[in-house]
């Protein structure tokens, strides 16, 4: 596989992860349980959407066909999206949202940290900013997971339900293929499979305090990286892309 093709594919994967999770988190705006959280969630959403923008812009440059961030975000179909299944999962209750955030950030923080040493200067630059944002997401989501897991009977039940529902999407985080292998060999991107031990440690630290347990997953769900998504992504995109689809080329 050509390094350039692999780089473009990786940028779309990372950009899609950030955009889709950023959009999901932004859906809480105006609906959070308390005002403080109603500001914290959009803050986190904006961190992710900011990362998506720089990744898409760079993807457009690497591709060299004149596509920019808006084209990549608004004019691709669900099958062209390369995001993890985890990030497109619906918000569910507050427990689901916080656990999804923790799972993702606990992976991305070490990922970006290693990416800071990338031979690709643009990616290293993006990583340097993103790693701090992800460190805060771990802390914010982790503290909530602890309080809900070790909270009331109801919050503990909801937290345990979230663990049951979302743990089948963990394995996909660490998947490798031609794209990741090519970029690891070129010194451009870290090997996702090498981050499992650190992810396990982070989750274990939170789960011990939260009195939660990671279940054994017999049938992990994958497919997002090759464009096979749940139907929920289609609904998300129909809302996200509505304006550009209805008024093509609209700017404001």
């Amino acid at each position, binding site marked *: 596989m050509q390094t350039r093709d692999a780089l473009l594919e990786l940028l779309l994967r990372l950009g899609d992860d950030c955009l889709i999770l950023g959009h999901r988190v932004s859906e809480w705006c105006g609906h959070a349980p308390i005002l403080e959280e109603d500001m914290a969630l959009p803050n986190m959403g904006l961190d992710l959407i900011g990362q998506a923008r720089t990744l898409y812009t760079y993807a457009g440059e690497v591709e060299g066909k004149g596509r920019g961030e808006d084209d990549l975000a608004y004019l691709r179909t669900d099958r062209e999206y390369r995001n993890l299944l985890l990030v497109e999962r619906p918000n569910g209750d507050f427990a689901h949202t916080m656990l999804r955030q923790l799972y993702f950030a606990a992976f991305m923080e070490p990922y970006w940290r290693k990416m800071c040493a990338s031979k690709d200067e643009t990616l290293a630059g993006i990583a340097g900013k993103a790693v701090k944002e992800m460190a805060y997401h771990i802390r914010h989501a982790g503290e909530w997971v602890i*309080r809900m897991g070790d909270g009331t009977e109801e919050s503990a039940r909801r937290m345990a339900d979230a663990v049951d529902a979302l743990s089948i999407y963990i394995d996909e985080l660490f998947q490798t293929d031609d794209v990741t292998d090519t970029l690891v060999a070129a010194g451009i991107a870290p090997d996702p499979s090498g981050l499992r031990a650190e992810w396990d440690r982070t989750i274990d630290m939170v789960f011990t305090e939260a009195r939660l347990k990671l279940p054994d997953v017999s049938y992990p769900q994958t497919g997002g990286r090759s464009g096979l998504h749940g139907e929920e992504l289609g609904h998300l995109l129909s809302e996200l892309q509505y304006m550009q689809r209805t008024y093509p080329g609209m700017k404001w």
Partner: protein
Amino acid sequence: MTAEAPTKDTPLWEVFIRPRNGLAHRHCGSVHAADEVLALQAARDVYTRRGEGVSIWVVPSNAITASDPLNKDENFEPTASKIYRHPTFYEIPEEVGNM
């Protein structure tokens, strides 16, 4: 957001932010939170979104002892007639600049 904020489980905290090194923390508002860790997080999320600070303090609101507004006259009125406490009777040398 729900109409009733659960204030019993999430008491009020006063938030103080230091805008830059060398300046004092200044009171900037309050947040509701279950404990001090979440209060710090909430303060960060609500009050430092535009680069307002380099350090945050949170203090339980009920730990603050306030003066009684009814005592305003006896507390503060007597100083009104003691203008000699203001440093306005000195000539400040020009080299000192603004004080």
